[in-house]
């Protein structure tokens, strides 16, 4: 069932219950996003798509990528509050990833001349989760995930061991908005593809799926044991903080 939505004064109709960002797109109104992708379930982690919505005389700030449309809603994408929010998100991202070109460009577009927060780190990943969600929902493999909690959150394979489920499709590298996942040929076997993320490799099968002759299978349990022991000692260190 289609319902009428007004976006910045422009009237459009979209399916009831679908995210209001569709209304903006239909109306030709641009809403910046980082973690949103049409092929994936909405995630709501970057908060960049937040807009003001008036419905039933109530005004709310919501993420447009997942807020369900109801008839009679009025969406405002360019109010002072919305601009303030977008600016602050970029300030925080700039503090996290000061060297990433895409973030620097977006920050300039938001009108940020000199950063609000001191430079204390230089991350490349913005934790939008697109790579993880793509691998899970579209590719169906789920070779990578989001590990750890809070400021230690990172994209990694289980126990950070070389993946035995990655198929080397390169979707994660393709979808990554900052370009921090690179697809490179494997040093040992140039016909294989390796996904590199910083110093880490989200690697595809190093033995070309010939499991009977696979040295990794043999070493897998030993590798797993080492990884678990290492994991346990970092966990103990973290919990004694």
């Amino acid at each position: 069932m289609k319902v009428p939505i007004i976006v910045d004064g422009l009237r459009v109709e979209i399916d009831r219950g679908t995210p209001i960002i569709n209304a903006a797109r239909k109306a030709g109104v641009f809403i910046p996003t980082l973690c949103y992708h049409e092929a994936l379930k909405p995630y709501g982690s970057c908060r960049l798509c937040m807009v003001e919505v008036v419905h039933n005389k109530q005004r709310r700030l919501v993420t447009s990528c997942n807020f369900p449309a109801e008839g009679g809603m009025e969406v405002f994408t360019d109010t002072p509050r919305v601009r303030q929010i977008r600016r602050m998100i970029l300030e925080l991202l700039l503090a996290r990833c000061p060297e990433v070109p895409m973030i620097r460009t977006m920050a300039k577009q938001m009108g940020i001349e000199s950063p609000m927060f001191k430079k204390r780190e230089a991350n490349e990943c913005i934790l939008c989760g697109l790579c993880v969600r793509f691998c899970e929902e579209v590719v169906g493999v789920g070779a990578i995930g989001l590990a750890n909690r809070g400021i230690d959150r990172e994209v990694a394979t289980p126990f950070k061991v070389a993946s035995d489920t990655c198929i080397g499709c390169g979707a994660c590298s393709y979808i990554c908005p900052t370009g921090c996942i690179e697809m490179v040929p494997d040093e040992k076997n140039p016909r294989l593809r390796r996904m590199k993320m910083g110093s880490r490799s989200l690697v595809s099968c190093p033995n070309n799926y010939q499991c009977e002759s696979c040295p990794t299978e043999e070493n897998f349990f030993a590798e797993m044991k080492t990884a678990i022991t290492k994991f346990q000692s970092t966990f103990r260190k973290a919990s004694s903080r």
Partner: protein
Amino acid sequence: MQQIRTTADLERLRGSLLQKGDPGKILIRICNTGCRARKSAKVIEAFENEVREQGLQDKVEIKKTGCHGFCEMGPIVVIEPENIFYCRVKPEDTGDIVSETILNGGVVERLLWKDPDTKKFIKCEKDIPFYKKQKKSISFNCGRIDPTDIEDYIAGGGYSALGKALTTMTPAEVVEMVVASGLRGRGGGGFPAGIKWRLCSAAPGNIKYIIANGDEGDPGAFMDRSLMEGDPHSIIEGMIIGAFAIGARHGFIYVRQEYPIAIEHLSIAIQQAEECGLLGKDILGTGLDFTIKIDRGAGAFVCGEETALMISIEGRSGTPRSRPPYPAIEGLWGKPTVLNNVETFGNITKIFSKGADWYSSIGTDNSKGTKIFSLVGKVKNTGLVEVEMGTTLREIIFGIGGGIRKGKRFKAVQTGGPSGGCIPISRIDMPVDYDSLREAGAIMGSGGMIVMDESSCMVDLARYFIQFLLFESCGKCIPCREGLKQMHHILTNICEGRGEHGDIETLTELGRFMTTTSLCGLGGTASNPVLSTIRYFRDEYEAHIYDKKCRAGVCKNLFEYYIDEELCNGCTLCKVKCPEGAITGRKKKPHMIDPQKCIKCGICYSLCKLEAVRVR
């Protein structure tokens, strides 16, 4: 175990239990949950040995109960029927208690509670001001019944509310009664429980779930712990009523891993309820099938959040998700789910045993009923306090809490844990209810109340809570993860003497931003401690930033200890105990601290009986 298949069975069992009770027997009620930390288990053992050796088993019953509430005075022992209240009981004291009180009918005066104002000993539990000024309702059974014995719960009237709801009301009537009572969720959100039940009840689908949140992550809060440990059946009974109301056949109690006694007592309670037929198939002959499973947390504060908790039960990493869809419509495994705090379920039981009218006659217009608070910090009487909503902070902190210890001055009270805020002396007469607290810049939260005196630094307090939330944030959304990170940097710098002009404004802007843009309540309320301390204690922030001074004597780089020559009597205790040899002075002559050597460990400050060590 006696089968309870109808309400008639229940009444009959209660009748026979009440008849069995021997009024001539002496009853010793002793806390076997929280007070185990002060060796109450050994006290119980000592009593049991003493009673056995003296051959008093027929005359004396020892009942291991839950938390009595006056935790400052634990281990607590109450002797009935005289209602004698003994506090800070040690295993060595049991001999005196048995010979003096049980055999002779007298009192052991040194173990009685002494009123610090009147200097008089008080004999009876019911006369102690800490208890007299409370309105114990939800926590009534804690400290009175044996939580590991369902018959104790039934004898006191337990499960009759369930009988009434299941056999005389329809599910819709049950929902409307909860709405009429005005009960608001006790977990912190304060959302009207009846509205949640109504939404879930109306949601399409015939698989629904009901969950009790026993995660209690707020530092300093232990209300839910003592309810789960001391009166687990009240929670179970509330859940069965809820399951009947919304049409759920399965329930979960999510208990934090760090509460092993709660897990043990809840497990025993569930098992006993199943054994007699109050859980399982065809409950009380009404056709209701309902079972409860316990799910344990794994050390994550964020898993106390509604959606994260459900995701955690599903076996995935507890990361909150956006709403809508609301869990009442789409929750655990995508099915309509009601999630309420364990204390909320305790309230449900009371509403159905005494009626919605009775319940809504207690409290204020918008905050009905009673609330259990964990009163901790610099008060004389720490422990669990249950009062009517609308009771003032003054009545709680000074009336029940006995005021600030060691004659110091009240500075602020932090309510609502890391999502809450600080309230200063200027607002001490405000009523404690959901809306008044929110307007003051704090929140009710789950009920934590941390009282502070002049030796607490409000900036350091803000830093502490931000650090806690930083470690507990799930890290999914940018405002919370990155915002907390920057707040932590700024606050740490301020506390270490590197505060800069503009920091207060940055913290305020960042705080307001996080409140409006975070994905879940953790980030959404994270800035409350910072914003409320800036609102009421801005001068402290300015002193830290511009004067580089911490007047409370907490931030080590921003103060120094010195000895007041007029007060020091030269006892040399501080000089002897100083780990750095920073104190010099001769016997009977005023001593001196060398600020170059002093590491601000605070040992001299806490040791000096004349309070001659001071902060500047």
